Structures are given as C-alpha cells and as structure tokens.
C-alpha cells in the first residue's frame, strides 16, 4: 500500500503496488488506477452520462425526474443533479451533466470523506454519503473552480450537498429523456472523463 494514497479517496479494498507517476495500469479485473503527479489516486468511473446537446429540446424532464427520484418527491430543478442551461434567444440548450471526473475536485476537498466512490453498485460514480455529509459545501465550491454551474448542489432543507450518483446504475434522466439526448457510456476498464481531461465547460 503506497504511502501517498490519501485516505480521503477511500480506496479501501484496493491493494495495488506502487505505480509510476501518471501511469495507467490494469491488474486482472481490478479497476484501473490513475496516479497523478500530486499522488492522488481515485478509481475511474465505469459509467458516465453523455449529452448530445444538438438535439436537446429543452423540456427539462431530465432535471425534474432527477429531483423527483432522488429527493423524495420534492420536485425542483434546484435539487436536480443535472442542470439545464438555456440561452433562449440563441436557441442553445445544454444539459450539464456530472462528468464523474477522473480526478474529482469535489472528492478531494471533502473534509469528512462523505464523498466516496460507489463501488458497491459497480458504477464507481463519485457519490455523497448523506449520513456523513456535514453540509460545508466545499465540494460545491471546488467543482465551481472548473465547471459552471457546479454539479454538486446544496439542499438547503436537508443541509447537505447532493450530486449525481448515476441513480445506482440506472440514470433516470437517461431513461426519461424523451428525445434521446442523454446516453450512458460504460466501460469495465474505467473511463477517462471529466477533470483533468475536460478542464471546464
């Protein structure tokens, strides 16, 4: 177990040898691990939502189904983990999805390890453990450094942050999108997506 693995990344159960900086190595059917120059190691997400904004109709079903499903029937786009950004006159509708970053800024700043990698469901999504979250909103701030609007959001009523967790492997926004703008990309090897590959959007 290499010393530089930060406990916050919560990679318990993965015991691998030391890797070279910036290298990607696959060991058996274990997850690929990416090591960054700062020594951060996070298992890559095996699943991610992609959006093809060119045919988006801006109906906001994705937002509202997310809130309905994940916030116990509280229908509100301010609780949804996918965010519709619209430029009405220009006719530019963009569903902003959580990229499940390879090097997630949100995960690194969490002071209480509430942000974890969802290995239980096999999606390896970056999720927030509601029981552990203290509502400090550091993840919201961290994401905002790279992506606007910030993908983790603050649920003021419950005083916790919420973020996309891929709905336990069956993203409801993808299922309910009437046009097929959203789709799921899966890979057992893990996907190199989000930060640092996408620096901002």
């Amino acid at each position: 177990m290499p010393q530089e693995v930060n406990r916050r990344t919560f990679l318990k159960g993965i015991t691998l040898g030391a890797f070279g900086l910036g290298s990607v190595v696959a060991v058996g059917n274990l997850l690929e691990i990416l090591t960054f120059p700062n020594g951060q190691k996070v298992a890559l997400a095996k699943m991610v939502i992609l959006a093809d904004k060119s045919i988006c109709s801006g109906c906001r079903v994705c937002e509202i189904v997310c809130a309905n499903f994940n916030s116990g029937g509280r229908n509100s786009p301010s609780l949804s983990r996918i965010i519709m950004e619209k430029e009405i006159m220009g006719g530019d509708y963009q569903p902003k999805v959580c990229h499940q970053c390879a090097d997630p800024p949100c995960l690194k700043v969490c002071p209480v390890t509430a942000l974890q990698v969802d290995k239980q469901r096999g999606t390896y999504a970056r999720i927030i453990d509601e029981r552990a979250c203290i509502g400090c909103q550091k993840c919201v701030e961290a994401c905002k450094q790279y992506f606007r609007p910030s993908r983790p959001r603050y649920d003021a009523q419950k005083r916790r942050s919420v973020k996309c967790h891929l709905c336990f492997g069956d993203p409801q926004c993808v299922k309910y999108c009437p046009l097929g703008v959203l789709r799921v990309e899966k890979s057992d090897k893990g996907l190199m997506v989000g930060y640092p590959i996408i620096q901002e959007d």
Partner: protein
Amino acid sequence: MKPQGGWVGKILRVDLTSGKISEQSTYDYVPKFMGGRGLGAKICWDEVPPEVGAFDPENRLILATGPLQGTLAPTSGRFMVLGKAPQTGPVESFCRSGVGGHFAPELKWAGYDAVIIQGKAPKPVYLWITDHKAEILDAARLWGLDTYQTQQMIWKLHGPKTRVMVIGRAGETKSRIACILTDTGDASGQGGFGGVMGSKNLKAIAVRGTGTVNVARPKDLMEITHHIQKLFSRKSLRSDPYQPEEKNFKYNIWGGEYGRGSLSLLPGELLDLCNNPSSGYSQTPDGCFACPVSCRSRVKGPDITPGVAFCAQSYMYLESMVHQPEKGYSKVTWQAAKLCDLYGINAYDLMAIIPWLSDCFREKLIKEEEVGLPMKEIGSWDFIHKLLHKMANREGIGDLLAEGGQRAAAKLGGKAEKLSRMYYPRAGKFAGYREHWVYLGGFPTGYAVPQLALMWVLDNRDALVSHSYISALWGAAFTVGQNALTAVPEKIIPVLKPVMKAAYGSAEAAEFVRPDGKNLNWKWAAPVVKRYHEHSLLKDCYVLCDILFPFLFNANTPDHVGDLTLESRIFSAVTGMEMKVEDSYKIGEMINTLERALAARDGRTRKDDNLYDIYFEKEDAGGRKYKREDLERAKSDYYRLMGWDVKTGTPTGPTLEKLGLKEVAEGLEKRGLIK
C-alpha cells in the same frame, strides 16, 4: 386535511392601484375547484361582476396554475390566463387562454399557485416574483420595447433563468387581440388579455423560483410518466431528430400523422434552408416543460428572428405562400409571424383578418388609398409589416383592426360584416373568435360534423374543436390513408366505433352521418359534447396539454382505443388524493356549469348560442347541411343533460345546489336570472 402534494398553498394578490401585495391560501378554493380554469372561474365569480368592463381597473387578470405544475407530470408546463376578456364581443365576458412553455413551473417553484392582478398602476410597472415575495418595479425603460427586447432587459436584471410573461406594443395600446408572450413564442392569445395587462399599465410579469413542489407518491408519478411517454413518443433517431428510433411508431398527436417539430410539416424555402447544414439555418425540436413529444421547432438563422414555430405562427401568413408559390413556406411567412410576436398580437385572429381584408378588397368595399396598405400585394412583406405596424400602434385602419376582426367588421357593417362571418361562426352577443382550424359546415372544404357545431355554439371563446374529439376523427382518417380534409365519413366511422365506445360510452356515437349518407346524425351530439366539455374542463384544471389530452385515439394499436384514465392517475399520484375517472367528470360538469353561470350573469342566453345563417346554407363535400332545427334540438338536449333551463340556457337552482355551488345559485337569484 391538506393534500400531501401538488398545490404549493398560496395565491399572490397584487393591487396595482395601491401597490399592496398580499397572499391568500389556495385551500380556500382547492381541491374543490382544482386549479387553472376552475380556480379562475371561481375567483371571477366572486370578484368580477358584469358591471366591470375588461379594461376597467377592477377587472382581474388571473394567472392560474393547477396541481400538476412544477412536477414531473407530462405536459405540466401549461397554465391558464383568465379574467374578463376584451376580445369577446360585443359583450365582454369571462374567458380563458392556455399558455405553454416554462413560466408555470417557475411560478410554482416561487411559491404561488396563482397570481391575481387588480387595479391600475399610475405609471408603467412590471411585477417581479421570486421565492415567496413579489415587488412592483418601475418599467419606464421597458415601455415601448418589443416582447423580445423586454425579456432580454429583464434577463439582464434578474438572470437568464427568469421566465417572463410580457406584452408588446399591441398590449400597450389596449388592442383587443393582444397576446401575452413568454420566451420566443408561447403566448396567451385568445381573449386578448395582453390588452388587459396594458390597461393596468403592467408591462411584464417576471418569475424566478428555487423552491419545490411536493409530490405525494413520487414512484407512482414516475411510473405513470414513463407509461405516458411510451404512449406518445419514442426517443429520436440520432440522424434525424424528427423520426422515432422505433420503426413505424407514430407520435400520438392528432391521431398519429403529426409529430416532433412542426416546421417539418411546412415545406418551402425555410425548411430547405434548415435542412441544409451549410446554410447557417437550423431547426431543432423544442419542448414545453416536461413534454414527452416536443411538437414545436426552434428555428434560427443569420437573417431571421429566432424563435419557436408552432401552429399559430406557422399558419398565420399563408397568403405569402400564395403570393410566392415557388417558395412555399418562406422567410417572409416566418418573419411575418415573428413580427406578430414582437408586437404581441394574437396570430389566430390575423388568420381571419388578413383573408377578410382581402375579400373586402376584392369586393371593392375598401380602397388601397383609404386603408394605406398595398392591398394588391397581400402576401408580401411590404403588406404585412405595414399592417402589423398600424395595428400595433393603432394608426389609421389599424385602429379599427386592433379591435379584433369581428368588431371591426361590425363597425364597417353591411357586406363587409357578412363576409367576416365566413371566419367568425358564432352569432349573438358572445362572439369574437375565429374558427380554430376545423372548418364548420363543410366549407371551404371538409365535412360537416354535428358535434363540432354544437361545441361552437356553446363555448365562451373559440371552441377548441381542433383538439380532443376531432383528434379521433383525424386519427381515423389517417388510418384509412386519407387526411383531415379529404376523409369520407363512411370510411372512418368503422374505425371510430371502438374509440367512441371507450370515450363516449357507445359505438353508435361514431355515426355522425346517417346510414343514408344524405343527412347528419344529431342524436349523439349532446352527450358527446357534454363529455367533451368535461374532458376539456378537467384538462384545463389539472392544466395539461390540449394536444395530448384527453387521449382518445391511439395510432399504434390495432383497435386505436385511447386511455381516458391518464389524467386522473397523474392527479392521484401528485396530490395523493385518489381520483376516479367518474368522479373527475363530476368536477368537470360542476366547473362547466359555473362557467355557464358566469356567462349567464353577463347576459348570455339561449339566443346567444347560435351560428350565422351561412353555416346552415352551404352543403359540405358530401352534400349534407346543418339544419337549424336540428341544432336547436341538440341544444335543448344538452341543456337538459347539464340540468340547465332549456328556455334560457341558464343553470337552474337545484342543479347548482346539487353541484355544491350554492353561492352561485344565490347570486343568480339576486339578479333575477333564476327563480
């Protein structure tokens, strides 16, 4: 006991005269009056007596959402605008107008089920509503701007996620056919409520909400939503967003022949440009909030006004297609419709005004130099932009036309008035509305259907005959390989039978033509129209989409039977209050009677439920005619079914009391309208 979900519980009341803003509980009215049209009718009954004119400060402008707005419920982006309508004429009376888009959910998230606006501001103002508070703000710098510019100014001030209901120049000059517009094309047109807003010196209503709407049974709502999505649409092909990925699937709009993106129905210059990827023009499907289909097109290009295309805008300036037949639906057609939106004029009424003007010119009733319009050039950009400019600013002939087509025609009188009857079917004191797509009496083309005539005489605006009942007829027509205008009744009736049995209780209801083929069958007119009214009242109270609900005709099953339980199932899931279909029809009946009582209080009687003579004179394509005595008999049947007085058409005391409208009965009694 308060419902567990749906309504957010507060109604915002704004008195523009005093600047006082107050709140009241929605539960004073709901769940009895549901929301939308029912809620608005009740408020109008309580607060807008017949003495109040549409442009009086005491008139109420009511923006009413229903229990489903702001939730996942499919097509829940809609809400209703209600009040005393300036367009209804010659007597102004209660009317409603539905709006789609994204304003309604924003209002619910801001914490209000409805907004009641009364009084008149001393100077131009706009209303800013956000998370449980509202402010009246100065609109001196917005007054005079077009609808797009106003919205852009407000977005700069309050953020781009703000949704705005705004009037243009036509509303400011109190045109009786001014609309209230939101985003790039969704508008509350019928009724002329833009003029009401203008009379109150209110330029815009801006809303931004970050709150929540609770749903009682979120899992049930997701199930029913998924079910409805599967009924109406499929995901799009990646190569062509207008085609469903599942082969042979038909989007269930108007029986299956229409679907995603309305511009694709309009061949011509603009569509060609949009289909050419290198042209810089494009069209993409555009949806109202939570819509499973997205029937509209979002169109943009380097030298056109961007915006959303759907029926009103698409068909407003058909003359341009006659003027330049080689171009078809051209940039001029599009720009004319968009100019209409920028000025905030109701495009539906222009669809009557322009051909009527053309008729008058042909009959030499108006002269070019008199009206100051290039009448020979009808169909050109020159003509339409001059006409719209005059109408919006009330200059010259525009001043007359801004009163609405039917009022303008009545003022000219004589032959000009007679010519206008071609476009405005309802006679009597409560007319003023143009035909809504479906031609009555079989002309200029099409077939006479008794149900449609009865719908037209009974409604308090244009009967929305292009939706609901007619969707089944059109669906059947498409099924036998014909279109809405060419279908032969004998061919579509067999297809209709199971559909009508499910919807109206009897397969016989499908036979709108007698077996001899020579006469119309009026037997089922009254019961079908009663159920049709219940359907449309309920849809406007939950506030769901006109096009998708009620779901009568399924284009994708062999028997084509729709599902009428969808609306009440959504309602049950959202509010947690179990609603049976049969019970919901009783609510529809009650609100229908309430609306009739409102009209009766304004002076409407059986005499006002009538059509002009020409509708009884012409034959339809099958050689059949409406007969006046048949219509009168059907009216009596309808009044009897509803429990209204057959002589006057006014709801009777016992009926009102049975429906739980005791205060309405007392009000009518006080005015001597019932004994």
